[in-house]
């Protein structure tokens, strides 16, 4: 098993942190994982990507070459990374951020959902990783939760835990 996941969007959405937490969760599960990010000089607003490779064997080439799962969270990221996905790869987009995609893709309303359910868009990244864990069946819900709780400040535990639960529900719902 080897799964290459790319999360791309703009700086400030928490996608690089999300890629780190997803990798850490995979490691808690006993898997091998690498994580790598690309960003520009901007702190917020520039196009960013967080790459995750999860495998049950040693990972040699350290970064994603062509993802199996591509999550696109901005129009610019779509322009930059939208065409780099495996032939049988899955593209997931948030319709709030990305429009006009011609190729086959799955639309998941991450932004609208966290905004409506949690009255905050900050835990958007948590919903995404929990969604991916469930959707791909590669990382356990418990390990995701453990990885997240190790990292976040105590006062954000409740809202982030809820975002993880919603993400898992959506992951289950969108499974083929």
């Amino acid at each position, binding site marked *: 098993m080897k799964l290459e996941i790319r999360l791309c969007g703009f700086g400030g959405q928490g996608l690089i942190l999300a890629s*780190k937490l997803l*990798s*850490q969760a995979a*490691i*808690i*599960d*006993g898997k*091998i*994982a*690498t*994580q*790598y*990010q*690309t*960003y*520009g*000089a901007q702190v917020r607003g520039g196009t960013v990507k967080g790459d995750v490779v999860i495998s049950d064997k040693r*990972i*040699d*080439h*350290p*970064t994603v*070459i062509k993802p199996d799962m591509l999550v696109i969270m901005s129009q610019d990221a779509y322009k930059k990374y939208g065409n780099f996905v495996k032939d049988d790869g899955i593209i997931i987009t948030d319709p709030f951020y990305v429009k006009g995609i011609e190729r086959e893709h799955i639309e998941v309303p991450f932004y609208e959902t966290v905004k409506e359910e949690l009255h905050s868009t900050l835990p958007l990244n948590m919903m995404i990783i929990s969604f991916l864990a469930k959707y791909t069946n590669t990382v356990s819900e418990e390990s995701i939760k453990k990885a997240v709780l190790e990292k976040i400040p105590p006062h954000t535990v409740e809202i982030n835990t809820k975002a993880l639960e919603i993400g898992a529900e959506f992951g289950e719902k969108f499974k083929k």
Partner: protein
Amino acid sequence: MSNAKLVQGDIACAMGAIDAGCRFFAGYPITPASDIAEEMSKLLPMVGGKFIQMEDEIASMAAIIGGSLAGAKSMTATSGPGFSLKQENLGFAIMAEIPTVVVNVQRGGPSTGLPTLPSQSDMMQARWGTHGDHEIIAIIPYTVEEVYYETIRAFNLAEMLRTPVILLMDEVIGHMSENFKRPDKSKIEIINRKFPTKTPEEYFPYDENEGLVPPLAPFGKGYRYHVTGLAHDKTGFPSTHEESVKRLMERMRDKILNNRAIIDKCDIRKEGNEEIGIFAYGSSARTSIEAIDNLKEKGIDVALMRPVTIWPFPKEQLLEFAKGLKKIVVPEMNFGQIVGEVKKYLSDDVEIIPLNKYTGRLITPEEIVDKILEG
């Protein structure tokens, strides 16, 4: 469940430094090496060490020379532009024989170049960046785990041989994270510098009667001596006396070349039936291993030579590796720096094929496979 954690290359470097006994870090922030400084600023105060952010990279290199002279194992970390600035004081540390560890997390250049993207284009700068005849030790790890262990080894070599050691990474190795389990400290070999056995009155800092590596007395312990970048005699005071200069130059050279057994480190993966080899280091070696696995599935066996110590260049190991090989591919993220060294030592019987990328992107396994298949 596993005990490993997701750890970033730069952070593993800081952990390795602390575990090696580093107690002084001076630096100036620069992507992709800033994470090392940031981590050292957190870790050093916890172990009674000192962290200082200097006004620039020149001063940072000067500060670690001072820190080391005062007896603290010392390190700085930078990237291309900062590595250029450190060269003058790096030469001073070589000449004055001050143990220091200088980390260069390579990014695309020249000048400010590509701050957030990888490159291996300072390989020759590590060898010849500072002026004058000198030997240098440079190490280039390829995984987060190896970054940790090689940082420790860099300190051990620096302290043992009274010399600067350069630890080269590239942006990917520095910025990527992967499984790493910090080992129990009892399992790590730590080497400390020799303390003088002579009294302050009898002590000479560069006394060749003490062997190739005379003990270095820490400042503040009653030993008074002179430290200079000028050629000097055993007292440390300048001397242009021909015999004295010759002995100094040769001792500084020989302390490296005669200790190759402890300095050299190579990862050679060869069964003996291969006709094709790859010579690769750092992140390009990881890509090469994946390419080798892909080629094996196609029925093509390819050998690998991965130098961990790149300077002094592993000439003898290369000659042994090349036996029986018809061609050697050398993938590098530069115009072709180390391939020149590979060519220098091999006869025309072996075809040397460079594979170069200098766009701030990693070489892909496919590119290496294609290069080998196209002949």
